[in-house]
């Protein structure tokens, strides 16, 4: 009963990791962002994380900040996000919304859950909402049959890993490095350690994000995770003017990476 878990499970059945692409709605425009998401799916993304623009993106580095700032200034809101959800679903990938909490709270938690489900969205990832504060969202996502993805981090205690993964549905988001979003030269072994600690407390799929930018890194992460999440590298394609073509090509490279599995699977 989870669209995300089903899709990630299907990838696993093919002996590979799933590719999860992040792009924010409204950069450079709403239409162009939807075109980019469609291109990401055509290039091989299994899941698209549809970013809700927010004025104070405390977990994001300069690349995503710059793109989101454009969307915020243009007044992009939840209605645009729901259109992107429909487009991604139509393109054949699983749409999941990525949003800081305040835009959802402002829209109305129950209204958000109802409208997201109606648009064909699988659920939402909430980077600044921890399960401790998520009462209304747990109830609304249950009622609407939506997935809900919380984050775990290298600094999470074992007790928090257990509680947080228990609250997740769809997958568990392992924020692999301590820090903000942005591409990194190396993935580092913190990610693999975090995934191992997470698997010790849950059977749910674990996807890794923060820092992956190319096919080789994707292959490395695919060696120990169920899904590889890529954000800043996609956004950079748009910021540097390569448009949907650049996004499609990046997806193809990453999709090849998640099939390569350079290291031994767990």
């Amino acid at each position, binding site marked *: 009963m989870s669209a995300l878990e089903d899709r990630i499970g299907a990838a696993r059945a093919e002996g590979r990791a799933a590719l999860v692409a992040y792009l924010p709605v409204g950069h450079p425009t709403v239409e162009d962002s939807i075109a980019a998401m469609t291109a990401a799916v055509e290039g091989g993304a299994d899941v698209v994380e549809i970013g809700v*623009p*927010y*004025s*104070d*993106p*405390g*977990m994001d*580095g300069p690349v995503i*900040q710059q793109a989101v*700032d454009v969307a*915020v200034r243009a*007044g*992009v*809101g*939840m209605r645009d996000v729901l259109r992107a959800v429909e487009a991604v679903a139509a393109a054949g990938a699983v749409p999941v919304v990525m949003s800081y*909490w*305040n*835009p*959802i*709270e*402002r*829209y109305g938690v129950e209204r958000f859950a109802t409208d997201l489900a109606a648009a064909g969205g699988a659920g939402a990832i909430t*980077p*600044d*909402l*921890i399960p*401790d*504060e998520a009462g209304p969202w747990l109830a609304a996502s249950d009622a609407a049959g939506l997935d809900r993805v*919380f*984050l*775990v*981090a*290298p*600094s*999470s*205690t074992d007790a*928090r890993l257990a509680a*947080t993964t228990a609250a997740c549905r769809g997958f568990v988001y392992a*924020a692999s490095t*301590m*820090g*903000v979003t942005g591409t990194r030269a190396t993935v580092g072994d913190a990610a693999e350690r975090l995934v191992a600690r997470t698997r010790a407390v849950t059977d749910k799929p674990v996807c890794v994000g923060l820092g992956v930018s190319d096919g080789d890194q994707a292959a490395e992460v695919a060696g120990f995770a169920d899904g590889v999440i890529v954000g800043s590298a996609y956004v950079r394609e748009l910021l540097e003017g390569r448009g949907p073509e650049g996004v499609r090509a990046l997806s193809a490279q990453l999709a090849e990476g998640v099939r390569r599995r350079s290291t031994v699977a767990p």
Partner: protein
Amino acid sequence: MTTSAVHPPEQRLESAQPAWPDATGHFGVFGGRFVPEALVAALDDLTAAFEAMRVDPAFVEEFAALQRDYTGRPSPLTEVPRFAEHCGGARVLLKREDLNHTGSHKINNVLGQALLTKRIGKQRVIAETGAGQHGVATATAAALMGLSCTVYMGEEDTRRQALNVARMRLLGAEVVPVTTGSRTLKDAINEAFRDWVTNVETTNYVFGTVAGPHPFPLMVREFQRVIGDEARAQVLEREGRLPDAVLACVGGGSNAIGIFTAFVPDEGVRLVGLEAAGDGVETGRHAATITGGSPGVLHGARSYLLQDDNGQTVESHSISAGLDYPGVGPEHSHLHDTGRAEYRPVTDAEAMEAFALLSRTEGIIPAIESAHALAGAMRLGRELGPDAVLLVNLSGRGDKDVETASRWFGLGDRSEVDPGPGMDTDQHATEGAVTSGEAVRGRDAGSQA
């Protein structure tokens, strides 16, 4: 309400502890923790260390000694009769946080958090700053305790408060101008959180006000409540009664919570927070978060904030950099919703009138932030009448604001401000007081700043 009723001398000499927040940092429906999971462990560690430290006699003694010998506490209470003539004849007592070392109440909190930093074994502190007062205080404590210090400050504010940038650098701190978003305090906080989540193993975030995720609103309150604890005892000793009202400006809300806390259980004492109304709340160019905002989540806590229909934070506006913030601490939201405290707007022009008035009538140049509280006293005093006793938190001194004030009043091209009649012309001569008309004329110069 015109009250001249004298409160019975208070039996209770000890100030009580408020019943909030709960164990997870909630003040009613406000507060809590809306943060990335990566920060939860650090916030838990900080909470545990703070709870252990506050009951540790060695810490209590070290903190008290620093407050006495370094900050210069207790700060005096000063009655200001010539200023009070403009407050409907009410009596006005100022709690002189401007006389603290570094020139504001911010040092109270920072010394506590710096001691805590040492206790948890971290060597680096980071801070956000708006007016620069919290940055200066943090840089000061870091110098005193041998910690390395990075201060994030909106680029716009580094221009408005250039003097404080120089002070921080002299004290050995690195000042990072923040060029994202509105380039003011809110963006400096975002940048400080990004630094913290990246460097949390070595770094402690010394937060400057009673906002942010738990435990900051609780911890900063407990470090600032010395203001009200002292003032309550000082007023009782001097007057044999409690004040009718306690007034303070509200940016994030730390000086206000600091002076309110001791009085929260004293139901006869009105608690009045003065918010920065900029050009006027109706113009949309203001920073009056409770008056003009709505509940939501910003910077790690649920509280009132200025936001649009999409939940985007709206930029605030105030002549005062220290009040130019679109959020407010969760305890203030709770005090507002429960009716225990009231929050009123004060425009730039009203604050600058009070700024000039206190300077001219009492020889005390207040911080522009604190001038908002003084303007609130001018209005409330007229409402309450001549027997009322008003306690006003003078949260800081105005040295940092001399340039802004000179521009506002057009002092650069004139040797002297025209003396004019004060507000209460029927009562006393007010030599040299700047009229409200003067203040309004000066406004164009101010907004070009």
